């Protein structure tokens, strides 16, 4: 790779990593947007440091951003990096094992000094040997700091500003490496630094110099070429994070239903962004209560639901535990509410910034009494929009709490999102008590769907008393009658099961004629799909059934699964969906592939595992 070769690649993974203060998130975002504009598929994942601001240069303070671009469909931010930029030895230490064999590693020589090695906890002054990568990785030393200083020399910037611009030098260099014209980046920077003209000037200058530096380096480094994706559906796109997409899905649903959106919430990693995003849209009338705790988060929302809003609450695992009792009230009062759980590593406070799928059984069963709720899960950053929308639709149309599971990985990650128009989204028709309906409708239900009529306060003639005690099937009055209770338990269950009537069938992806069926759910879709696609491409035969609707399951679930000889359920937990399937789909031996490390799957490990499964007596 020491000649000016252009590598044409189908897809490539780039990671930027440095100190929290080094601006890696911005750098990564810009690079990913530039690539998307050029027609690539993209998927990104930020990797925040575990501490808010660890001492500069230490391992605890490393912040990273990974971008996966492709000329064809890509599903994840990628496993290991083809190109890695590290701003200091700490970043190197954290990321060394994530560079591909033969990959490119660009590092800032100005930050690779003795004191830097010490801060990062290296024992020697040759970190590359210490990490045993000096042979396997292409090292590209660049004096980023001093080049940036030179670039801005004499323009009157203080040293802090100068050094904070070095990420732009790195970005310029990487843009050159990937043949990304930087003029589009200038546009983004203009938006970002609207009010700080001098910073804008500095950033553009350094970016340009970084790009030019790349051109001059040409002789010793090949560049990459990732073509425009051709198999993408035509349209207008942006890149969106799962948390933002979730927030927008709620906004869209409220407008479609003609309701005010209300969210009662309490901050918790990694779910806070949803509430923060929503709090921006006072202009759209979104009401956000930052409540005193999670219980108040959901109970203020239940109040709003009772009062006739599209009500939601968002949280992560420990918060969902706290909301358990109130979700039970929503079940009993048959009030619509969307409960979003952005799952993180547990149990207890656990690993707050890491991803996991360990809240499924809690979502299904974590309440006293027989209290069925709808449970569903999104599978990519962008489809959080769709599933937040559908969760709202189901809650409103079926008068039921809906728990929507996302996770830290898709919540924080981004992917391409084709911009929707409200008019194209499915209709939402809540089951209101008609003004001219019989009086008994106020407290009764549609006998077909079992959905209770919604009598919203403020309307004359619809006054009624709701609550958490068991109610008489007909009159809604408190009842402790034995048979009535049995009937009500059955009715609430039937209502939730009826949701299946409006659900799409689960579709098989990959090779549907395979003997091996891989089952996944939620945020692992990208990794499973990548692994399955790769293996089918290599000539293996694997089918994938990925679930977004869990309770109730899509109607074709049992029939679909029955077709396969071998079924393996892959999850980021100890086997929760597998357990659930065992209770719902009799007679099937469900194999399990589980990972509980606070990390997403890697495509590589999945391929290896599927390979080993196929080698067994299929």
């Amino acid at each position, binding site marked *: 790779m020491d000649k000016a070769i252009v590598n044409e690649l189908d897809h490539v993974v780039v990671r930027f990593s440095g100190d929290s203060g080094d601006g890696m998130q911005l750098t990564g975002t810009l690079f990913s947007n530039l690539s998307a504009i050029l027609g690539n598929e993209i998927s990104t994942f930020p990797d925040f440091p575990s501490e808010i601001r660890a001492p500069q240069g230490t391992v605890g303070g490393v912040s990273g951003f990974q971008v996966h671009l492709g000329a064809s469909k890509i599903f994840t931010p990628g496993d290991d990096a083809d190109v890695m930029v590290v701003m200091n030895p700490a970043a190197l230490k954290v990321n060394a094992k994530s560079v591909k064999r033969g990959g490119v590693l660009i590092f800032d020589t100005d930050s690779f000094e003795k004191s830097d090695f010490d801060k990062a906890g290296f024992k020697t002054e040759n970190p590359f040997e210490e990490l045993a990568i000096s042979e396997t990785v292409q090292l590209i030393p660049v004096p980023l700091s001093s080049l940036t200083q030179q670039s801005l020399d004499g323009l009157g910037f203080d040293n802090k500003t100068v050094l904070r611009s070095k990420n732009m030098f790195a970005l310029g260099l990487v843009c050159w490496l990937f043949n990304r014209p930087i003029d589009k980046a200038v546009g983004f920077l203009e938006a970002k630094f609207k009010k700080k003209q001098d910073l804008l000037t500095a950033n553009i200058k350094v970016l340009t110099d970084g790009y030019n530096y790349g051109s001059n380096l040409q002789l010793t480094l090949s560049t990459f070429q990732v073509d425009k994706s051709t198999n993408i559906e035509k349209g207008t796109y942006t890149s969106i994070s799962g948390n933002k997409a979730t927030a927008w899905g709620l906004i869209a649903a409220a407008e479609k239903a003609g309701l*005010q959106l209300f969210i009662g919430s309490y901050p918790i990693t990694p779910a806070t962004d949803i509430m923060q995003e929503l709090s921006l849209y006072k202009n*759209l009338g979104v009401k956000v209560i930052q409540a005193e705790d999670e219980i108040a988060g959901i109970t203020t929302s239940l109040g709003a639901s009772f009062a006739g809003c599209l009500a939601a609450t968002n949280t992560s695992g420990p918060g969902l535990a706290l909301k358990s009792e109130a979700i039970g009230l929503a079940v009993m009062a048959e009030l619509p509410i969307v409960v979003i759980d952005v799952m993180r590593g547990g149990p207890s406070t656990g690993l707050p910034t890491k991803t996991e799928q360990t809240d499924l059984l809690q979502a299904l069963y974590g309440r006293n009494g027989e209290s069925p709720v709808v449970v569903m899960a999104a599978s990519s950053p962008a489809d959080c929009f769709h599933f937040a929308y559908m969760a709202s639709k189901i809650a409103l149309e079926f008068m039921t709490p809906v728990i929507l599971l996302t996770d830290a990985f898709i919540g924080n990650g981004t992917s391409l999102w084709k911009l929707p128009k409200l008019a194209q989204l499915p209709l939402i028709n809540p089951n209101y008590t008609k003004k001219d309906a019989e009086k008994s409708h106020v407290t009764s239900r549609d006998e077909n769907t079992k959905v209770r009529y919604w009598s919203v306060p403020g309307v004359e003639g619809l006054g009624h008393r709701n609550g958490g005690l068991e109610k008489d099937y007909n009159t809604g009055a408190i009842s402790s009658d034995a048979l009535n209770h049995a009937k009500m338990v059955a009715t609430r269950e039937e209502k939730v099961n009826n949701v299946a009537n409006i659900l799409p069938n689960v579709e098989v992806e990959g090779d549907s004629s395979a003997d091996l069926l891989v089952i996944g759910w939620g945020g692992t879709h990208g990794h499973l799909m990548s692994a399955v696609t790769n293996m089918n491409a290599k000539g293996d035969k694997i089918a994938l059934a990925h679930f977004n609707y869990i309770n109730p399951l899509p109607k074709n679930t049992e029939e679909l699964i029955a077709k396969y000889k071998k079924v393996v359920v892959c999850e980021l937990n100890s086997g929760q969906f597998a357990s659930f399937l065992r209770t719902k789909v009799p007679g099937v031996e469900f194999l399990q592939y589980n990972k509980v490390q606070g990390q997403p799957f890697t495509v590589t490990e999945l391929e290896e595992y599927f390979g080993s499964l196929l080698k067994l007596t299929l």
Partner: protein
Amino acid sequence: METTNIQYTAKDFKSDQYVRWCPGCGDHAVLNSLQKVLADLAIPPHQTAIISGIGCSSRLPYYISSYGFHTIHGRGAAVATGVKVANPSLAVWQITGDGDCLAIGGNHFIHSVRRNVDINVLLFNNQIYGLTKGQYSPTTKKGFVTKSSPFGTVERPFRPAELTFGARGTFFARFLDVDLKVAQSVMSAAAKHKGTSVIESLVNCIIFNNGAHGWLAEKENRPDRTIVLEHGKPMIFGKERNKGLVLEGMTLKVVTIGENGVTESDILIHDAHAHDSTIQLKLALMEGPEMPIAMGVIREVEDETYDAAVEAQIFDEKAKAKIKCFDDLVATCEQWEM
């Protein structure tokens, strides 16, 4: 809340449900008073939402013909906050007990008071957990023997007024279940106050804590043992209306008009509207038998309500907004054709 010209009577606010409190329970009187007040307020029943937690007292919503929500234990304040913020045009009452409000519901209580949400909190203080059959509550007097404190409680009780003031309450009032007149005037004032109106109703649990307020309740002694405060009026009380309160240094004292040269003009005038709560708090914390127990509206000051502030912010941003709907929002994305 729009008021109307329709004339309502208490009957319009009675639901068809049988009232299931024990015969002789103090809650009955409060319910009747409330129905009367609701009728007098002339807010239509369907514009009224009554939210409660769990407890004997929290069953009240069933008995009122309006929109009612009997939620879960302790969460009434939060649910009521949600209802009011969602639809500020509803008149929202929160019905709660000393356990529901101050034990499990303590956090939501202090936060709704702090935020000054425009709800009326009717706190039935019988100093006991009625529904669960007689355990001590956070307002039970220290040393009192109950089912869960067979050797007497070892806990210092909350004084609801003090906690309300500590949470920056803008309205606090008190009445005795049997005193219908004060009950109605106080609830009516609470309904009109913009902000969280905390009304402590001293009620008798005839089964598990009979007579907790008994020494006040006896009709003939009530004038001597309580003082009904009215804004702008001198703090006079007593069967002969010859006792009054004065301030000596930082301390409230009872004096007798006509004795030791004390005249009516020496008596303190009640200022419920004073922002400085010093004297109001002293009044609220007066304890017998030396001092009369204060009834009536003790504090009533204006401040922005949370629900109004939420509305105002939305109103302002909508007025300025270029983004008017979801499609506009989507249009603001950095976007590109593919």
